[in-house]
Every structure is written in structure tokens, then in C-alpha cells.
């Protein structure tokens, strides 16, 4: 059996595990975030880092520790005096003159024996020419402060096919940085949303309705009465209300107050917390359970068209197509019922009985949902999909750099988010001005002029531009260890979300200002 939901009660409550093994203990704190499914996705991933800079090794450190499968550092540079001073994954003076990739791979490898690291000292240029398949064979590619011509070639290559890996572009200078994830399509089942699915109190399924109506509140002793779960109280109160109001729900503010008072009037003792809970949860009675608008929007996704489905490879869209059909066909026009009941004031017997009702019904609806599936999908995935049906996410991205070619979007962004946009533009200008030569620092004037060519000469830059330009001119080639560490944390976190397909990654250019300490997102 693939999930707990489908186990019988004996197996679910008696299977005693032994103490966890070494690997589970080592990864305990992260398994609580992304579970075994996320961990296995990480372990089968292969990550390519372009350059062995301090920022790159910081990112890698935060990926090697949680246990990705493999990483390669592509870097033909030798360790310079300045590299040896700002990179924790070089051995200071002793590393100078050796290949940066080899030194970094050796020292990063010490962090986790189960991760395989490779150093590649070819140039990216030569690989783009002769061996592009090598690049596209990775799970994800990350590039830090890459020369803009090579970056354009790399991003164009990785955009070519939906099967190709996402590209994370990271740029930094001094206290300022931004990063962008280029991907065509990213689907998420386990988004770890904080909204919980409907308990369907307004549209009770038959067994729940029967159960609620069959209980004789009046005949219960006071202990039992004080432990009726609020779900049951509400279902019953709502049925009674509908009966006396020609089948309609409490609509106006007055009616709703009246309904709540009616719930409280059912108390036989003042301190019955279950009735207080029912009153507090009464809004569930008039919040109509229907397919959430975000999910309805997914139903018109182009990937669900007949032609697209015929060639579609991902089980996600087959599941989504089945969900669409299911919600159209089932009599409640809702998502399949959740099997997870929140905790509520009750005794064990009443709570477990209610939980069983939900589980049984959820299982029936899941089976009904499965009958709409056109292709076989792994049971564990179906379970997870149904459980998270209220919080599915489909993201569609744009190629790296399209934002800078869209003058109208830039102008809009300059007025809506001036600080963020100016930093992004100043970093873009630096990258255009920087042609491999770090002996001459670009002046503030040349950075400003370059920004004007991006946004158009007639566009007036906001006052925030001075801050961004001045800061870039101050330290154009500075890779501060702390900025590297901060970026290392943020980028690794987003990469983990991309690889595990859990949680929701950032969309657009994430801009970071470590002078005033803030982050912001533009160009989404």
C-alpha cells in the first residue's frame, strides 16, 4: 500500500518501526520539510555550477549538505590571490595557482560523503560549441557572474526544449545582487500551502449528513453533549436552518448572527467549548465549497488541449485533466474530499468516528477521480495529487533577458518598484560593460549611460538610480564573502524548490540590497 490513507486500521496503528538509520538521523531536520519524496528527488539530481567563485561554492555548500546526487563545477580559472582570500572552499594561500574547480570540488566533497563532485576545467565556450548535450544532461544549471555573451548563448540553448534543465542566473557586485530562474514550465503538487481544504460543511456528503441528523443531542448526558465535534454541530444546525428557511443558507449579516446565536443556544451548560468552537467556525456554513478560482484557471491551461495531451509526457497534466473532468461530472462540482480532519474539541470516540467518515468518503471520491485518468499514474502520486488538489501550482516562465528588451515593462517597473529596478539595471549595465577586463573600473557615468541605452534615452531614471549606480561604481568587481553567503542561502533554497517540486519558487528577478537589507521581486 502506498499511503497511510489506504491502510486498514490494524496496519495503520500497529506497524512498529525500529529506530531510524544513520541517514534518516543525519537528514532528520530537513526530512521534516520535504519528506522522503523531496529527499529522493534531491538525491537523483545533478547540478552544474558555472564558475567556482565564492558565491558558487556558497550555493553548492547548501546543496551538498542536504544531499544532492551529483555536482560539477565548470571553471578553467586558476586560484588567484584574491580568490584565496574570499572563498571558504579554498585552502587559503596553499590553493593559489591550482585549478579553482578542483580545489573547490575537493573541499566541498568533505561536507557529505554521499555526494559525488566533479571538476571540469574546459571552457564554457568550447562546450557550447562542441558538446551542448553535456550541459543539457544536468537537472539544473547555475551560473554566477557569467560573461553576458556566453550567458545569452547558454540561456538560448537551455530554452530550446521543455525537457532541458532550468537555468539560474546569479549576479552580484559588492552589496548588491539579483538572481533569476529561467524555466519553461514548473508544476507543483506539494506547494505546502497554508490554506486548508474545505470540510464541505455546506455540502455534506450523505454519510456525514445522516450521521449528524441521527444523533439525539437531547438524550445525551452532559459529558457526551460537551464532546460533539463542531463539524457535526454545524452540519446539523445548517440542515435545520435550511428546513425552516425554504432551503436557503443564512445570507444577510442579521441571518448569520441569528444562526450563530442558534448554535450557542444549543448549549446545555455554559462551558461547552465545542459549541463555542462551532460558533467560531460558523463561517464555513456560508463559504460555498467550490473549485478554488486558482484551480479553475488551471483547467484552461493550454497543456490540457487535445493535441498537447496526446504528446504530453508529464503525469501532472494527465492528473489535472482528470481533475477537470471529475469536477465537471461529480454532483457537488467540488474537488475530491480531503481525508485530513483538523483537531477539534471532542472525545476520542466521536472524533475517530467522524475521521472514519471523512476517510471512507475521501477514498470513494479518490476512486471516482481515478476513473477519469487516461494513463496509469503511480498510486503515491495520485494520493498526493488528490490531497493537494486545492493548492496545485503551474508556473510558466520567460527566457532570461526578455525583461530588459521590453522597454514598456521596464518603464512601468521603474515607477512601481524604482529601487529594485535600478539595482537590476545597474547590474545589467555592469555586465554589458565588463568584457573580461577587471583592471579598469567602469565609472558612474558609463554605468548610467549603459542603463539609458537599455531603458531608452527618453526615459528619465528615478533618484534611486544614483544609489544603485554609485554602489556598483564603488565595488564593481567585489565579491564580498557575506554577500556570497547570503546569496548562497537564497539561491540554494530556490534550487531545492525547483528540484523537489515542493514549495513555490520565486518568479521574476529577485533583487537583493544588503545595504538597507531588503529583497524584492520584479519582472515576473
Amino acid at each position, binding site marked *: 500500500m502506498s499511503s*497511510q490513507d489506504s491502510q486498514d486500521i490494524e496496519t*495503520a*496503528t*500497529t506497524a*512498529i*518501526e*525500529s*529506530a531510524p538509520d544513520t541517514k*534518516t538521523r*543525519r537528514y*532528520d*531536520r530537513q526530512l*521534516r*520539510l520535504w519528506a522522503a519524496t523531496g529527499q529522493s528527488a534531491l538525491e537523483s539530481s545533478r547540478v552544474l555550477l558555472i564558475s567556482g567563485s*565564492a558565491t558558487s561554492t556558497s550555493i553548492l*555548500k*547548501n546543496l551538498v*549538505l*542536504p544531499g544532492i546526487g551529483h555536482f560539477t563545477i565548470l571553471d578553467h580559472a586558476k586560484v*588567484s*590571490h584574491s580568490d584565496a*582570500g574570499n572563498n*571558504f572552499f579554498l*585552502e*587559503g*594561500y596553499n590553493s593559489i595557482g591550482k585549478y579553482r574547480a578542483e580545489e573547490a570540488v575537493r573541499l566541498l566533497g568533505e561536507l557529505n560523503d554521499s555526494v559525488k563532485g566533479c571538476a571540469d576545467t574546459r571552457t564554457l565556450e568550447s562546450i557550447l560549441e562542441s558538446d551542448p548535450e553535456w550541459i543539457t544532461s544536468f537537472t539544473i544549471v547555475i551560473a554566477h557572474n557569467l560573461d553576458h555573451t556566453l550567458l545569452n548563448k547558454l540561456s538560448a540553448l537551455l530554452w530550446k526544449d521543455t525537457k532541458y534543465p532550468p537555468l539560474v542566473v546569479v549576479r552580484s557586485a*559588492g*552589496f548588491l545582487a539579483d538572481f533569476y530562474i529561467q524555466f519553461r514550465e514548473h508544476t507543483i503538487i506539494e506547494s*505546502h*500551502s*497554508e490554506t486548508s481544504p474545505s470540510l464541505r460543511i455546506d455540502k455534506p456528503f450523505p454519510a456525514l449528513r445522516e450521521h449528524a441528523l441521527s444523533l439525539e443531542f437531547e438524550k445525551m448526558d452532559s459529558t457526551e453533549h460537551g464532546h460533539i465535534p463542531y463539524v457535526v454541530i454545524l452540519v446539523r444546525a445548517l440542515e435545520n436552518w435550511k428546513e425552516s428557511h425554504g432551503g436557503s443558507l443564512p445570507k444577510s449579516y442579521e441571518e448569520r448572527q441569528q444562526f450563530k446565536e442558534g448554535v450557542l443556544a444549543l448549549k446545555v451548560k455554559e462551558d461547552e467549548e465545542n459549541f463555542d468552537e462551532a460558533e467560531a467556525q460558523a463561517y464555513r456554513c456560508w463559504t460555498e465549497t467550490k473549485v478554488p478560482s486558482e484551480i479553475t484557471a488551471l483547467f484552461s491551461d493550454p497543456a490540457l488541449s487535445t493535441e498537447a495531451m496526446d504528446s504530453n509526457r508529464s503525469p501532472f497534466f494527465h492528473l489535472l485533466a482528470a481533475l477537470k473532468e471529475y469536477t465537471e461530472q461529480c454532483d457537488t462540482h467540488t474537488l475530491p474530499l480531503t481525508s485530513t480532519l483538523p*483537531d*477539534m474539541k471532542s472525545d*476520542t470516540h466521536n472524533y*475517530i468516528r467522524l475521521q472514519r467518515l471523512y476517510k471512507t468518503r475521501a477514498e470513494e471520491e479518490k476512486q471516482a477521480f481515478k476513473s477519469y485518468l487516461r494513463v496509469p499514474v503511480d498510486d503515491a502520486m495520485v494520493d498526493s495529487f488528490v490531497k493537494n488538489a486545492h493548492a496545485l501550482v503551474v508556473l510558466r516562465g520567460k527566457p532570461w533577458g526578455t525583461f530588459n528588451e521590453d522597454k514598456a515593462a521596464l518603464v512601468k517597473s521603474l515607477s512601481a518598484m524604482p529601487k529594485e529596478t535600478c539595482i537590476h539595471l545597474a547590474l545589467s549595465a555592469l555586465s554589458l560593460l565588463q568584457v573580461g577586463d577587471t583592471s579598469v573600473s567602469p565609472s558612474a557615468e558609463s554605468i548610467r549611460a549603459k542603463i539609458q541605452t537599455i531603458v531608452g534615452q527618453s526615459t528619465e531614471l528615478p533618484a534611486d538610480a*544614483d*544609489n544603485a549606480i*554609485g554602489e556598483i561604481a*564603488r*565595488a*564593481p568587481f*567585489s565579491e*564580498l*564573502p*557575506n554577500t556570497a*553567503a547570503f546569496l*548562497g*542561502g*537564497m539561491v*540554494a*533554497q*530556490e534550487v*531545492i524548490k525547483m528540484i523537489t517540486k515542493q*514549495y513555490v519558487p520565486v518568479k521574476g528577478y*529577485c533583487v537583493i540590497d*544588503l*545595504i*538597507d537589507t*531588503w*529583497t524584492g521581486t520584479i519582472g515576473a
Partner: protein
Amino acid sequence: MATEIHVNCAATSSDWQDRYYHVDQILDRPGPRTDPSFLAGDEVKDFLRNKCKILVIGAGGLGCEILANLALTGFKDIHLIDMDTIDISNLNRQFLFRPADVGRPKAIVAAEYVMKRVPGVKVTPYYGKIQDKDDDYYSQFNLVICGLDSVEARRWINATLVNLVDPENPESLKPLIDGGTEGFKGQARVILPTVSSCYECSLDMLNKPTTFPICTIANTPRLPEHCIEWASVLEWPRVHGDKKLDTDDPEHIGWLYSIAAARAKEFKIEGVTWSLTQGVVKNVIPAIASTNAYHCWYAFKIATSSAAYLNNYFMLIGTEGVYSYTFEHEKRDHCPVCGGEALEISISRDWTVEQLIEMLTEKQYMYLEKATRPNLEKKVSDLVPDGGEVVVTASTLPFSLSLIVTYKGM
């Protein structure tokens, strides 16, 4: 202690040319938003590399990150306090430790590692409690950075640094940088004792720990957590008497797990697992390497004034996209640590001392003192006149709270 010798590791032969190429770009010239007090050039570098003495408290997830970054940015005289030893579950993020180090003191291993990796840096470890050290010890530092996992320890160091401040002596003000993480969320803040809001001022921002009513645990369990609490809170003391539960001992966790699983079976409750048992009894907080990297920043900026430092609270939430929030948390007038004013409370004449203590504990002001026990059932109004002052203390914290008690309906 005050007798410790300050070894100046200034400009050793290990300072090869261009070692600080990246950092020096920031230190050689001001930027558009740099504070006017910033003295670009040799003076600030000399302070950072030869004079500044910094204390790091905690060598866990945050501590490892802080240490490595302080060393790379050029701090040369770093002290480190930590009372823990290395556990295997630390290795997924505490990158200065290896499997062979499990069981060794974190402070010692971290210090050795950083000194080996970053030549010329001196890290002086202390394997023990922050409470072992006195005011003289804390006075020797220019700056204190915390990567702690306990509220109690944070309150202690915060109060200690506030008490150190002598208005006549600007050197006595030691900026405190504090941070914390939980899963994909992280936060960092800068505290200038007596000047800005302190840790105690913001206690009400803490999430209350999840607790289950004892009657639910004993009589009406519904969740697997209720069964686990039953095993640890009720069954452990009943069966083991005075033997203390060690949540790091796998045998103890194993015992709790089997008891909780048996109870779950009896009540037909699903979901008791080893991992959940450990999570509930240890109050395990998910933690990953990436979140720890956020807040190693502020020390460098404060020590060098090379950029505005955080004013004064930064939160980052990474579960959905990247969302951050920076704001100025304000001082609280009635803060028992830095506010100086007595807290006025109005209570019913019928309140017992126990009720008053319960209220104070709930607001996390203080914890119950044994010495108060004989008076618990007495009415507060029998002991304290209307408008009278009560001084509340806790043995774990180096400060007291003054309460002015008035009675309702007077």
C-alpha cells in the same frame, strides 16, 4: 575571564597580497549611502583586522555560518561560546563538523576548523554556558553575535548587555546581533542596548509553543501527538519515577514511541511514528543549511560602518517565492530590561498569588520561583496594598520586573 590574554594577530605573514581584494573595494571608498562617520582606508582596516574583538555565542547552524564569514571578512580575534556537543542530526547544515566529530564539543571543533581553513584568524573557544561568564568577560568585546536556539539564553545575554551600559562610557555599549531560523523562514536583528528596542521588548512577537490540555492527553486523545504527550508527560514519570527523560537518548525515545504506539492502537488513532515522537518530545524545529546564511552580515557592517546597518529587524520567508520584511521594532516603555518604568497592572481583589504568577508566566515575563510557593493560595490583596510595588525575579534571568498593582473597582 578578564584574565584572558588578548593575542594580537595583526598582519601576520599569512596576509598575502590581495588577500582582501574583495573586501577592500568596500573599505577603500564610501558609497552613496555610507554613514558620514565611515573612515575609508587604513584606519577602518586596522580596526577590523587588528583591534576588533568579537564574541560569537552558539556554534550551531547559525554559528558555523557566522564564524566562517567573520573570518573571511577579516575579523581576526573571535571568541566562541557553546555548551553543546555535536549530534549526527547537526551534519545536514553545520558545515564545520564531520561524522568523526560526533560527540565532541561544538565550540572546540568549530574553532579548530576555522583556524585551519582561514590562516591568521584566532578563534578562542569556550565549551560551557554563557552564564559561567561575568561582566568583565563580556566587557572586553566590541560586538556580540548570537546564533542561539533558546529564548532563555537570548534573554539572559540581552539583559546582561543592557546592564553593562554605562552612559558615561560609550565603549560600554556592545551591539548585539541576534538571529533565528525555522525551516524556510529566517530573521535577524540588531540591538543597540538601551538605544534601540531590545530582545525583551519584543517577547510578545514569539509564537506560543503548542501545548495540549492535560485532560485531552489523559482522557480524550484524538491526535497522534496526544498519545506521545501521554507517554512522555504522564507515563514516563509514573514508570521511571525521578529518572530524567533524555530526549537525545534513542532508547528513551524508543520507549516513548512504543508506549505512544500502544495507546494509539487502543484508541484507533493513526500516525504515531518514531520521527513524530522525537519531533514532539524534543520540540524539533526543521532546519536547513540555506536559511542559516541570511544573517551573518551585520557584524561586518557595524564594525566598519561601511554601509548602513540594519535598523533593526529583518524577516525572510521562503515558503512561497521570496518574501522579506524589514522594519524598525520600537522600544517598549515597560520593558523590564531596558524600559526602566514599572509596569502598572490592574487585577481583581480576589486574585491569588498563583493567578498573578500565571498571568506573568503567560506574558513570558517570569517563571515561578520555589520561594513563592507557600504564598500561592493567598490573595495578592492580602499581601500588597493598592498601588503597591512588587518586584518579580527569576533565577534564570539577570534582571527584575517592577509591578505597580492596583485593584479593579477601587
